[in-house]
């Protein structure tokens, strides 16, 4: 997994609540069997008009937001389907962090599996970031933020600094880019002990016979 330590980049404000994973990556693109190549389909139904051209009204299509790598959104971001294709698409498009007041649980988990940092800030702080982004863009330049996982801090170069909370284990894994499965397999003895204690016995492998109870 790619590590996440500190990232500085331009902000793309998406002033919407309850952005669901069906919007982030619509179902017609879930048939691929790879983890890559989803960025071109990110927010597809919002991004593109029926004739295939970019919808100039959609937030991420604003010229000033091209190349943005930090997504700023409203509450309950990533709700709905468990599809990990959502963080894959955000990552492939170029986003490294998402800032919102709240996230849906499964999406939040999925981000951490992919070296992407979801940052929860208070609603008032998110409001302030939207205001600052709007002011910067009105002045003709993109709004830049730094998301610092070492310091657990979001800051701009005009005095905005807020710390955020993150689970210490997840932070560690993200900072180091650790393989979660490899880490868990270090506890294989504990797993085997649990299985023994529950009468699972040696692993049989294979499927149970048709109609039989699982022994």
């Amino acid at each position: 997994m790619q590590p996440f330590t500190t990232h500085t980049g331009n902000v793309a404000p998406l002033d919407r609540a309850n952005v669901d994973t069906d919007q982030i990556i619509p179902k017609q693109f879930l048939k691929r069997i790879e983890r890559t190549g989803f960025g071109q389909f990110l927010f597809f139904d919002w991004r593109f008009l029926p004739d295939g051209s970019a919808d100039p009204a959609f937030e991420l299509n604003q010229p000033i937001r091209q190349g943005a790598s930090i997504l700023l959104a409203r509450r309950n971001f990533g709700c709905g389907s468990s599809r990990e294709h959502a963080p894959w698409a955000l990552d492939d498009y170029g986003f490294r962090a998402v800032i919102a007041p709240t996230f849906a649980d499964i999406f939040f988990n999925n981000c951490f599996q992919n070296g992407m940092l979801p940052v929860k800030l208070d609603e008032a702080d998110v409001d302030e970031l939207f205001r600052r982004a709007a002011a910067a863009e009105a002045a003709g330049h993109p709004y830049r933020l730094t998301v610092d996982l070492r310091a657990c801090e979001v800051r701009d170069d005009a005095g905005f600094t807020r710390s955020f909370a993150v689970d210490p284990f997840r932070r560690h894994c993200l900072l180091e880019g650790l393989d979660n499965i490899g880490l868990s397999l270090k506890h294989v003895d504990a797993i085997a002990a649990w299985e023994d204690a529950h009468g699972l016995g040696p692993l049989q492998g294979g499927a149970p016979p048709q109609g039989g109870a699982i022994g």
Partner: protein
Amino acid sequence: MAPPATGGYIAGSGARFPAHGGRRSTPKPSVIPAMPAPRTLLDKIWDDHLVCSPDGEQPLIYIDRHLVHEVTSAQAFEGLRVAGRRVRRPEATFATPDHNIPTTDRRLPIADPISKQQIDTLRSNCREFDVRLFDLGDADQGIVHVIGPELGITQPGMTIVCGDSHTATHGALGALAFGIGTSEVEHVLATQTLRQSKPKSFEVRVEGELHPGVTAKDLVLYLIGRLTTEGGTGYVIEYTGPCIRRLGMEERMTVCNMSIEAGARAGMIAPDQITFDYLRGRDLVPKDFDRAVAQWATLPSDPGARYDRSETFSGGDVVPQVTWGTNPAQVVGVDATVPDPASMADPSDRSSASRALEYMGLESGTPIAAIPIDRVFIGSCTNSRIEDLRAAASVVRGHTVSSRVRAMVVPGSGRVKRQAEAEGLDRVFTAAGFEWREAGCSMCLGMNPDTLAPGERCASTSNRNFEGRQGKGGRTHLVSPAMAAAAAVAGHFTDIRQWHYH
């Protein structure tokens, strides 16, 4: 309660607690032991499945059953292959294709080459990793959340995961069941465990009973409307109270299924006689069923157990529900009108509602019952079980689908389909003008050819009314099977409480 000598693993029943099982190295008390603190259903399952909680790490919990489908598993199996890992417990892993498959004649080849490749990939992965597959053409194939309970794969006290957010369904049988992402699917395949911090518990208590014509679907939509789409985030919901106890097994599945629409990864209902009666005789339940029941009966929350949060509702307050917006919390009674965003206090609710009304092509103040519809979909892991089809058929019997409506019934599994056909329900539907299809997720998410055209308006028994969910530009209204059936006949929403049954 020592483990039985042979083959009697009661399937992670959660019933052998440390205090009784003696399998953990609990220090011997030097004084008279205090009364054990009362525990919730969640506490009991959690405690029993905790593998280890190493310092500085998230705990590992054991997973009893892992359900797999074609859309979220290919990358996980590929990850195993690349790392040279195997599936730790293939016999606890069950796969079926459901999301992207056509619901037309199963003998026909799948026209979409990318869909076909995804299904072929599931087949070859199951072969390579020795996972049992209920394939297309298998009599027991179906929506993963329908076949799990139906085959007895799902049992009380278990931990169950699947790369699908509606895994919450299985909690209806007293299991802790939730959706996971593909990386976590890979983790479970490789380790049979999951990294998980213990979720908070949320008791949603429902007093009283539902009025005639009001169903579990109406109840859960009503609850989501009050809890909001994120009210359950971070929690596992346990539904309790007399109104819940009165629900049948299929109805309980409908309620738990939609917990995720209120933000809760899992919803659960303590097992009782209804649960045990439902499971008895199913294919994959423990051989010594009575013994399993005795253990399952210890699972319900102890009197005085504490939840992190509790809210109480009254079943008698619920009327048939219809969603008007683009998330399941945007819902009102069928006797209401489309709400006015200007009347909403929260600015974010207001802007969401305005956007939703624009997308849905609706105006504030329009009576719900005056909204005409073009399509009806009866199906999905929320409402495609035999009880759902019986309810819909009883409404349709002797009536004809409106000439302006195209209506479709998609049974949840091969078994549901055969049962319905044995009862003659298929003929009730087809005689009225419904299409009768093969099992699958179908138009709930429209990954297969069953989709809405832009602008089409659908009364749907599924679980999500998100923009484009059933097809780009499609407009989804979530309702119960009976309400969907009535809308198909009337051509618009209509209050099922006033329906003329033949």
